[in-house]
């Protein structure tokens, strides 16, 4: 229900609240014009989608590098490839992180600590398997002490192949995860 300026229910009594100084006329007057015509920057969407947007823009991974892929993961955090612009900041505590990037070979001795860490993470949580060793065992697929892929222990959302994957590939994997997170509410509704 639109409010007519000058009507009884208009709190501003027909006057404009926004008082502009003389110098700012150029920029702010455009906004004023837009506000009058109704384009005032209000977004309407379902709350689940809003929360999904918030979650995907601020994914905090657990500091968890196992082997060689960890070096490429650290390179992705560094200014040359910069994970920070995606909102991704590494965080040492499992209780406060959202995503676990399993970077490196999962060895049978390490399987239990990984499971413990995954259980300590608070929902909603996701897992990215980075590199061939975490995806399927990698070059060590004939070994007696390697778990053939981390998805034998914990559920995985995104697989990033490579040995090691380039930082750009890991960025692509995180963007894929962001798409998954954004589409989760729609999936729940069956769309």
């Amino acid at each position: 229900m639109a409010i007519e300026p000058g009507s009884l229910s208009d709190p501003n009594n027909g006057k404009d609240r926004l008082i502009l100084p003389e110098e700012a006329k150029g920029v702010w007057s455009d906004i004023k014009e837009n506000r009058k015509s109704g384009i005032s920057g209000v977004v309407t969407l379902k709350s689940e989608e809003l929360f999904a947007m918030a979650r995907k823009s601020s994914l905090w991974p657990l500091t968890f590098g196992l082997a060689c892929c960890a070096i490429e993961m650290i390179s992705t955090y560094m200014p040359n490839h910069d994970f920070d612009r995606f909102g991704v900041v590494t965080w040492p505590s499992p209780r406060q992180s959202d995503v676990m990037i399993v970077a490196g070979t999962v060895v049978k001795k390490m399987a239990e600590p990984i499971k413990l860490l995954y259980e300590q993470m608070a929902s909603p949580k996701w897992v990215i398997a980075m590199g061939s060793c975490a995806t399927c065992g990698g070059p060590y697929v004939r070994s007696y002490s390697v778990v053939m892929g981390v998805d034998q222990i914990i559920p995985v959302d995104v697989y990033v192949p490579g040995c090691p994957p380039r930082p750009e590939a890991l960025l692509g994997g995180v963007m894929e995860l962001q798409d998954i997170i954004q589409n989760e509410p729609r999936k729940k509704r069956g769309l």
Partner: protein
Amino acid sequence: METKATVIRDENSETAELRINMGPQHPATHGVFRMVLTLDGERVVTVEPHIGYLHRGSEKLTEGENFQQITTLFDRLDYISNFNNEWVYVRAVERAMEVEIPERAEFIRIILGELNRIASHFLFYGTYGLDIGAMNPVMIGFRERERIQALFEGVSGARMMHNYFRVGGVKEDLPEGFVPAVYALLEHLKKGYEDARDILTESEIFIERTAGIGALDPEKTLDYGVTGPVLRAAGVDYDIRKADPYSMYSDIDFSVPLGSHGDCYDRYMVRMLEIEQSIKIIEQCVKKLPDGPIQGKVSRILRPPEGDFFVHGENPRGDLGVYLVSSGGTVRPYRLKIRGPSFSNLMALKSMMEGAYLADSTVILGSLDIVLGEVDR
């Protein structure tokens, strides 16, 4: 009104020793390494290192692969200095088969090996600064590493696991424009090195946190089998490139930095000065780089004769040794034992850390510069 503070000492209270676990997942343990520390207040009484969280069975896997395929396993051992690992392995097979390597290939190997040493030391610089609490060093360290990795990508096709060295030489010739690219890179590296050096080397906080911490005397270091910058920081002049030269190192003019106290600050200084020396080596090699073939005469299917050979090389972390047992005429080795430098360096951790403060434990562990890939293999 004057108040007097009194110290209350309760004679009946006892403190018990606390056992804490710095688990496999920890931001400061440089990989999946676990330490169980027994603390008395702030002092460390004993430390028990637990390793094996990255044991992938590389030695057993080599018995099922032929000699060409094993190079890829060696790349992933000490995953920061890939070229140096590959180099020691191909030298072991070349010694067994008595292959002569052309000069161009030798110089290419030296250039790439030394560039990898610089990259590895920059990573040490970055992560060591991060352990101490500084954020800038890791950014600068990785900035320089990215430059070096871009050059490696041009040479071998990959930023990290190159698989470029072959028995008898290297896989393919250098790309066009390599020599000007190396000169440009060295200019950047010199500036980056000066940036890096100026931040930490004379910083009072850094000196307070590292000087006098974790000192080991020379006899104890040799007794544990420690090699590399940790040994040279204690004052023992043992650098395989000088003491037991391989490749063309005896024709190149460089010096080996030595420390005097054997503490964490000396280990840091030895590594920083080694970056300078590596730049010097690369400059000389690029001037001397001859034309010629890049592969020596070697058969396509490698079947070394019977025998056992131990070959070692100077990795950025120490003395990597490869013990190759060949049963004669087979395409696979009979037994390949890898002697990783970080394995022996880590044995010295106990005597360094006992009696130190808890806050110094990460500083001492960081100064050893271990990589779990070659500890566990």
